[in-house]
């Protein structure tokens, strides 16, 4: 990996940040982790540690944000899920009511692993076409096995290709965010003086629907929607 820091330097910064965390110097720990992230040498481990540091410090919003980013970057892990659960348990907000059903495609994307699907698709796609070419070259009596293998690979490649398309679509259209502000007011209209509908607090995961000016329209997991200050949330 080539980056701003050499691997040794990055490791040194990481370890020093960990030592700062161990002696409860959370400010120094955060500075170390953020230095790595800002120079393109982050990754799920650094994000996890940053989120854990925020959580230990009591900054619930940034803790959930970093942990969610760690999960997005590296997938689920037991320690990550435990700290996320702890952060959720500390949240002020309790979203009640029936959970609004996501559309099929976002749910499908959430249920499958994007990189795995993408690599599966590419592999089977290329291999299937290679077998087709081989099939053409072979004499009529020797084509059967190659033909069957090609069909099987196409049977995998086509659905995985559709899944890749789903991930690409969801990634381009669905934007999740975390509330950072201790208290964020959701209003009826994207205006500062508009009627307040509800309040959310740090750490709550919301969906960003649209943006206008300094307001974004957020949607809660139960479907509640309102316009909130853009600065009060951060995209995952």
């Amino acid at each position, binding site marked *: 990996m080539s980056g701003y820091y050499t691997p040794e330097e*990055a490791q040194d910064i990481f370890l020093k940040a960990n030592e700062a965390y161990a002696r409860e110097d959370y400010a120094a720990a955060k500075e170390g982790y953020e230095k790595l992230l800002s120079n393109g040498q982050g990754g799920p481990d650094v994000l996890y540690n940053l989120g854990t540091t925020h959580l230990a410090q009591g900054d619930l919003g940034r803790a959930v944000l970093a942990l969610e980013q760690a999960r997005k970057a590296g997938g689920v892990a037991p320690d990550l899920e435990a700290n996320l659960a702890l952060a959720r348990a500390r949240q002020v907000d309790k979203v009640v009511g029936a959970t609004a059903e996501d559309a099929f495609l976002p749910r499908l994307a959430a249920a499958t692993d994007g990189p795995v699907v993408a690599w599966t698709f590419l592999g089977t796609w290329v291999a299937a076409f290679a077998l087709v070419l081989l099939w053409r070259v072979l004499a009529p009596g020797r084509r059967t096995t190659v033909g069957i293998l090609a069909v099987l690979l196409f049977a995998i490649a086509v659905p995985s290709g559709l899944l890749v398309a789903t991930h690409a679509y969801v990634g381009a259209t669905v934007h999740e965010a975390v509330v950072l502000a201790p208290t964020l007011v959701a209003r009826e209209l994207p205006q500062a003086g508009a009627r307040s509908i509800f309040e959310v607090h740090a750490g709550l995961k919301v969906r960003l629907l649209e943006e206008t000016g300094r307001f974004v329209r957020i949607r809660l997991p139960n479907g509640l929607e309102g316009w909130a200050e853009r600065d009060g949330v951060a995209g995952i």
Partner: protein
Amino acid sequence: MRRTGSALGVVFAVFALLATAPAWAASDDLDFYQTVDREEVGTEDTFRLTVVVVDAPSNAQVKVPESDDFAILSSSRSSQRSISLSGGGPAVIQDVTRQVLTMQAKRPGRLKIPPSEITVRGKTYRTQPVELTVRAGRVGGPPASAQSGRGRQPDPFSSLQSQMQQMEEAFGDMMEPDRPTIPRGDSDLFLRASLDRDTVYVGEQVTLSLYIYSRVDLSSVDAVTMPKLEGFWTEEVESPTQLSGEQRVVDGIPYRAYLLRRRAIFPVKSGTLAITPAEADITTGFLFAGHRVHRVSNPLKVKVKPLPPGGPKDLPNAHVGSWRLSMDVSQTQVELGQPVTVKVTLEGVGNVKNVTPPTLKGPAALKIYEPTTSDKVSQQRHRVQGRRVMEYLVMPQRTGSFTLPPLEFTYFDPRARKYEVARTDPVTLTVEAGAGGASSLSAGTSQGSTDAANEQKNVLTAGGLRPVRYQAKFAAPGVPVWQRGFFVPVLLAPLGLLLGVALLGGVRGRMALRTEAGRGRQQAKAARKRLADAEKLQSGSNVGAFYGEVEKALHGFLEARLGMPVVGLTREALAERLTASGADAERRGKVLFVLEACDFGRYGGGGDPAERQKVMDAAAAAMEGWA
């Protein structure tokens, strides 16, 4: 020794007494109050209400309180007159009348004893009402009914005995049991040591008092040497910093008695214990007229009885008196990791500082640390009493329900002359998992973690913040695979390749048709395909069609290879052409064989499947390897 007093003083005192005798008659300032000996009693206990009136006329009648909630079991009345001569001023006469009611509550609750009343010269005085907490059954104390064992009904005789005892206690500090003898030679000023009793049990309190009896004016007491109290544990009860005398008459002679020291002493061994005399240096007179004298008190002896048999072995001698044991827990429901404070309190009358409360023990799941001990000692009627508190820190080691067993404290009650046991109730502690802890630990194991399983467990509760990671793979912010630059080219490359191959094949086909050799190869390829079609007819019933197809395929192949039409050529002409084109004898033979077989087959022969297969193989062999 020089006498420092004079008969003139006595005359003056008597005169002053006569002059002030009717002083109370003109006074409206009446001291009138009532007290109870306990604030908490049981319905089976008796208690005493003392109504005191000071300086009341002799004809004044005290109206004792009447209430439906209390029964008056007995009543007694006593009066005391004291005459004080101090500082050469007029004598002060004080009449104190006490009426002691032995009462019993009829029901439990917070009850109020109404005020007592007295009417003096048409004016009615009332005391304050007294509130009592009454509980069902017995609370403690030495009720006569408990000693007689007759349950709720009080025994009138034992009640009388109790009343006498109570009277003795009530007036113990006022009724001076000491009868000093005037020593020869020191009759004006002598030191007197006295005991409130001379026969006690081991561990029972004796009160030692040291007085100066004087008929002369005292200036100061310069030094006091208390007796050597070997065989006793001592506790200071009273040590006045100023001389304050009271009038006493000894053998008809009035004296001023000054208390120097009063100590509670607890014998630690049985037998007759001697108390050596005390000594004091006393200065008499005023200013330059005074002088210093040395006085030695009388020696004393105490007969100490051993504790009667029937008690526990090795009972400490401090475990004598009247004690009550209690156990208080700061909380009975606690989270794992949170400490619980358990206070074991032993309170009562006796040698508080030497008494040892029972040790708190519990199941292994509760770690009990060494206690801290605190004492609160006080005196009431010269009796040492108080409480000793042992405060334990108990740290639960695992979740579950655990019981602190009851505690017992055995002591000898010298008043009842028997051994008693003070007990506490067991206390159950419920230990739950802490916040964020695994709920299954508390819910699932609560049954199994009771006292039955007392083995030590290392409790590992899930929850809490997971630690940071100490190894990291550093990576730039992830870009989805489908957004990376190679994805679309790799996706489209196979399609393009296939398309390219197809196009190339088409182009090559078109190019091949433009040359003789190319056309030959195309014809040869078509001939091979025709032979493959003929294979399908091999097993059919139309023998002629099979042979016709084989012949056409072979003719097509030969035309492609020889570059000329071969239909119509004789077998010899065909053999020559084949020879000329380089075909070897074997290939030529197979070609001719196949053509002969096809001619034969088309006209009715060659129906045998084996024959057809042979022709098919020969045709394929003739085409094989001929570029």
